[in-house]
């Protein structure tokens, strides 16, 4: 039915007593996600939206049996929060926080990887398996269960595209926002492979943007390994060089990371590339 998360996924919210953490913990619970615990050092023993709060992730894991965490703590605490989650046995860590120093993510990712944990984000909207589990800050109501996997570097653009998909009657198996930072956890290739292996996913929508060469690498991977139809969209065709377009990772430097290169690579790999978001469902329908 999905990748990474489903209706049985039990979630702990790190930073649940913060404004965003508390708000989205409630929203996720409302959606039907099994939010079983929150963590906030010093607030152990309290409750947020009837969710028990602990001082450490260890306590949450021990008492409420969870292996997935979502992080809302401020940037300076993210490194420690990721490492704590991984050390406590969490296997999937979704980091929403924006503005995390890159070297912190480098270290935390390395540590988590060694502990066998996967990371999504930071600076991402999270992920959703529609109708089952929403772990993130996406508006759950625009999604619809279905058989198209969605991978995206951005937030609202994903919503725009998913909104178009849903309006066209194309549901989603799982939609994953991989985040807009230069160094992040699971990325295109990892997720393309997961969707390829998922018997309940028939096609894949992949939304990239300027900066780095992850889309080019993904194109190479699609060519070699992905047999399911892929429709793509690349944002930032008009972005000037050397300017950070909102996302820390969305920057064209030394002439590389342009949208043109990415689009060409994807087309060469056999993916269809939409010129505008509204074209995605149309292209997808031609391929199914």
């Amino acid at each position, binding site marked *: 039915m999905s990748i990474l998360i489903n209706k049985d996924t039990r979630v702990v919210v790190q930073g649940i007593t913060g404004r965003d953490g508390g708000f989205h913990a409630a929203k996720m619970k409302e959606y039907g996600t099994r939010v079983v615990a929150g963590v906030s050092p010093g607030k152990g023993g309290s409750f947020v939206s009837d969710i028990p709060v602990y001082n450490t992730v260890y306590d949450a894991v021990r008492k409420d049996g969870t292996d997935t965490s979502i992080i809302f703590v401020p*940037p300076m605490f993210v490194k420690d929060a990721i490492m704590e989650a991984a050390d406590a046995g969490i296997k999937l860590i979704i980091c929403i926080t924006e503005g995390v120093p*890159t070297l912190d993510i480098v270290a935390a990712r390395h*540590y988590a990887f060694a502990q066998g944990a996967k990371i999504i984000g930071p600076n991402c909207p999270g992920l959703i398996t529609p109708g089952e589990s929403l772990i993130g800050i996406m*508006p759950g109501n625009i999604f619809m269960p279905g058989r198209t996997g969605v991978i995206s570097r951005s937030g*609202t653009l994903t*919503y725009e595209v998913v909104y178009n998909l849903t309006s066209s009657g194309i549901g989603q198996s799982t939609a994953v926002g991989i985040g807009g930072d230069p160094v992040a956890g699971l990325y295109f290739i990892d997720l393309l492979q997961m969707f390829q292996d998922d018997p309940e996913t028939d096609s894949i929508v992949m939304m990239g943007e300027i900066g*780095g060469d992850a889309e080019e690498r993904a194109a190479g991977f699609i060519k070699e390994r992905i047999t399911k139809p892929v429709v793509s969209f690349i*944002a930032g*065709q008009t972005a000037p060089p050397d300017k950070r*377009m909102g996302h820390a990772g969305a920057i064209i430097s030394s002439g590389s990371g342009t949208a043109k290169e990415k689009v060409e690579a994807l087309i060469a790999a056999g993916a269809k590339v939409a010129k505008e978001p509204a074209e995605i469902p149309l292209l997808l329908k031609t391929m199914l």
Partner: protein
Amino acid sequence: MKIHEYQGKDLFSKYGIPTVKGSVCRSKEEALLAYDKLGLSKAVVKAQVLTGGRGKAGGVKLADNRDELGMVAESILGMGIKGYIVDRVLVAEAVDIAAEYYFSFVIDRNVKSVEMILSREGGVEIEDVAKTSPEKIHKIPIFPFVGVPDFLARKASSLLFDDYGLIVQGKEMIKKLYQLMIETDASLVEINPLVVSKNGDLIALDAKINFDDNALYRQPEIEALFEPTKEEQKELFAKSKGFSFVQLKGEIGCMVNGAGLAMATMDMIKLYGGNPANFLDIGGSSNPNKVVEAMKILMSDSDVKAVLINIFGGITRCDDVARGLLEAFKQIKTEIPIVIRLAGTNEKEGREMLHDTHFYSAETMGEAIRKVVELTNPKK
């Protein structure tokens, strides 16, 4: 965040990385004074601008004596390089170069860690070397918790040098550079060219350091080095209001929630024949005050002929967004036509609220963009 070469060299000196003696000067007089004070004979004058390709643009010149130095400094000061006006130069000792190398530490997106990049082909664009002779470039990923122990620095240095004395100099330099990288939260530390002088000394002849904007909060000394251009000042101002903003040269002002959607909006404006005046991500919420501030920024650009507001209402519902917009525009006096496109939760309710106002309201991105392009380009 970028800093000037001379500031990079100051940091190098602080970490014990060998550079040449030099001084930053803002006038011909200062340059001559520096020449005397440093006791130079042959000297080099280098434009200090935050862009590459200074050499090709004529921004780096040698001077054989004091008189020449004055002339050279005068010719470089005030010149324009890729849109930057040179307001200061670095006057430094000219080195007798025996060989040139390339060295950098960079945060690599794919390896997802710091990577050391080295080549015996120095003094040229490393991207060119990568294209023509990739085998001449060595890349060594760094384990974040392990860092650069002696053995790794020695291995790396051995890839550049054959002489063991140079290997040891290189090893020490590499360890110090990594320390600088980590301690200052740099995202790039590049020396090109790293040279060996005819005396056999290893010298960082250039210094390019970029810093991670996300880490500036814990690097006050680095942040203090930031000299925003006029353009960047506007971006910084927007940032202080909670926006991501980039100035462009078109006539359609954009206000979008979310960076990806904002880029896609710009792209579609272009696709539909218009030109975006800016990138502006107003972020997650869109309360009236933010809209007011964002409009002020857009209207401060006299090229803006129309404004497109493109909001995807997710967690925040479209009717709330519409209410906020109406509230905001009570405070804003403008003749500029405004196209609003609301999509997502309660979009119909939102659009209905904009009915019978002076706004142009659109249902889809395509419709909205067609409208705003038409408004700025009535001939078509």
